[in-house]
């Protein structure tokens, strides 16, 4: 592997990792603050991608479609929290798993009824469609660099909101002691609704920006959910910082293993996870 190719692979790994972070951040946020294990998180990613496809057909505008999809996802998150999830706060994880697995089936069936089972695709918008030559053969599409930067921006935004705002303070307080937050006169239910809605929107946003790069197919959510859980477990359940570091690790390790250790490539991220859990059983940045 010469140096130029090495750099391209590094870029591939970073880009994949950043996208993984975007999906995993919502999962870890919801778990960290609310203690809810949302297995239907992958479905939100799928819904984001399908909504994006639908609205691009309808409006013919990438930005408008992305905004519409994000808003609908946020509302969907709020409705799900208000009607279903809020029944589970006092129950154990097994009940949460049962409900959210059920939601996976419901969303998959809805996807099949609303949009059919054929693979769909969204074109890269014109203003992002160029590419940059990296080596004699390899080009890097501007859109994928855009997505990577957008993920970085969102990561920075999340960091600022959680560490520098009143809402973030409540989120952190809710993470460490929810009863105390309630005693201080904070409406914890409203906080939970906001956090869950934001979590759903982050996953859907990942689906939205993936739509032009991925294939929009039934089952795309479940596939991504597994990688997502690996990231959350490595990073430490509930830690946004952990999810960021872990997502980049998984992205880079997976990318290089695919080429350098093809026989191991299907299990390498799980090996990585096992090794990290042996050293740090709670994950890298668990609180």
């Amino acid at each position, binding site marked *: 592997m010469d140096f130029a190719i090495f750099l391209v692979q590094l870029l591939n790994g970073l880009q994949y990792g950043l996208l993984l972070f975007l999906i995993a951040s919502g999962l870890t946020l919801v778990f960290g603050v609310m203690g809810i294990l949302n297995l239907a998180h992958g479905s939100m990613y799928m819904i984001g991608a399908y909504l994006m496809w639908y609205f691009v057909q309808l409006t013919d505008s990438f930005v408008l479609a992305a905004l519409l999809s994000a808003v609908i996802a946020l509302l969907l998150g709020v409705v799900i929290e208000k009607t279903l999830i809020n029944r589970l706060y006092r129950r154990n994880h097994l009940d949460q798993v049962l409900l959210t697995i059920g939601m996976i089936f419901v969303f998959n069936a809805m996807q099949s009824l609303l949009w059919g089972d054929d*693979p769909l695709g969204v074109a890269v918008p014109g203003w992002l469609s160029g590419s940059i030559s990296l*080596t004699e053969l390899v080009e890097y*599409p501007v859109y994928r660099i855009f997505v990577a930067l957008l993920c970085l921006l969102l990561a920075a935004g999340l960091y600022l909101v959680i560490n520098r705002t009143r809402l973030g303070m409540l989120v952190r307080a809710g993470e460490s002691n929810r009863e105390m937050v309630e005693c201080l006169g904070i409406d914890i239910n409203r906080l939970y609704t906001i956090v869950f809605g934001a979590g759903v929107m982050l996953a859907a946003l990942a689906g939205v920006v993936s739509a032009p790069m991925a*294939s929009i197919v039934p089952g795309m959510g479940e596939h991504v959910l597994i990688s997502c859980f690996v990231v959350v477990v490595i990073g430490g359940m509930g830690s946004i910082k952990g999810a960021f570091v872990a997502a980049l690790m998984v992205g880079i390790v997976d990318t290089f293993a695919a080429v350098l250790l093809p026989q191991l490539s*299907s299990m390498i991220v799980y090996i990585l996870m096992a090794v990290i859990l042996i050293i740090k059983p709670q994950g890298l940045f668990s609180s």
Partner: protein
Amino acid sequence: MKTRTLYRGLSSALLGLSLSCSAISQAEEPIKVGIMLPFSGVYAALGDAGRNGLKMALAEHASDLHGREIEYIEVDTEARPERAPEIATSLMSQQQADFIVGPVHSGVAMGMLKVLRNKKPIVIIPNAGANAATGPWCAGNVFRTSFSAWQPSYPMGQVALDRGYKRVVTMSWNYGFGKESLEAFEESFTAGGGEVVKQIMVPFPKTEFQSYITDIASMKPDAVFVFFAGGGAVKFVKDYDALGLRGKIPLLGSGFLTEGTLAAQGEAAEGILTGLHYADEISNDANRNFRTAYETRFGKPADLYAVQGYDTGLLIAQAVQQLKGDISDRDALIKVMEQSTIKSPRGDFHFSKAHNPVQNIYLREVQDGENRVIDIAAAGLEDPARGCKL
């Protein structure tokens, strides 16, 4: 459902009678066709198209069946191999199906055949391409109206050589059908002096292809041959284009790479060369009539899987017609089926000794979002049926 209850009532009423005069009751009873296709999950669209095609053919030929009605018993396989033996057993033993049509997924096919090989029902496979089904696992009662994995890929080795490609990278998901496709390509390609520089097997169902494609770029082969289907095919073709390899390193594939996926792939698929036993635009009367009738009936364009289901229906209809409605003699039925020629939308085909279609493989190139037939890659291609004792 109503008609089924009626049949049940009728058949039990006739039970006493049929014991004494079986020839008469034979003509009264419906022919039972068990359908084992996926109607939910990833392959739901394929199962649906196959069922539509099958029913359409049998409805069109209803008058040729010598008064025999068709009773369908439909079971959703969910494309889950572990369920296949149980469903197959139930269709054979409880439902007493005369024909069992299915499946889409090769893993399910193996599970089915484990139970049904050399048993009474006639099995007709309308899609699953595992070489084994008409290879080491072939059986007198098992027919296939689709293809073997070997068929669409084997001629592509010669296609690559004809275009002057000497060094090729091959790539596929690491599962049976993918491996069989790459092996078939390699067989004709290396026999003609080509060299496979690297064979890349991607864990199924991973679709992060960027690192593999970057790796391919670093090797600078003359061309790339791949097997991917469905969502994976869309993602691969888009990644290949996004990393700038399209137009620089020609992309060849087994036909599934661009089948039912072109709308999603868009511009990225232009110029891809694939081999397959069908193309939407094949210009013969059978195909034109079929496509018009299918679209009128189901409100959407026909695809490959509809064609394969349709041909399965034609095969059943022809056999019943030739035997004048009496399919009770199993050996005679198999013999008639073996000798039939199907006037398929893909062009006429007949069956090999192993009961796999002997058919043309068309060379198609994606132009303006369509698979254009630019040549016949192999005419009347017969699967070698390695390991079949028929």
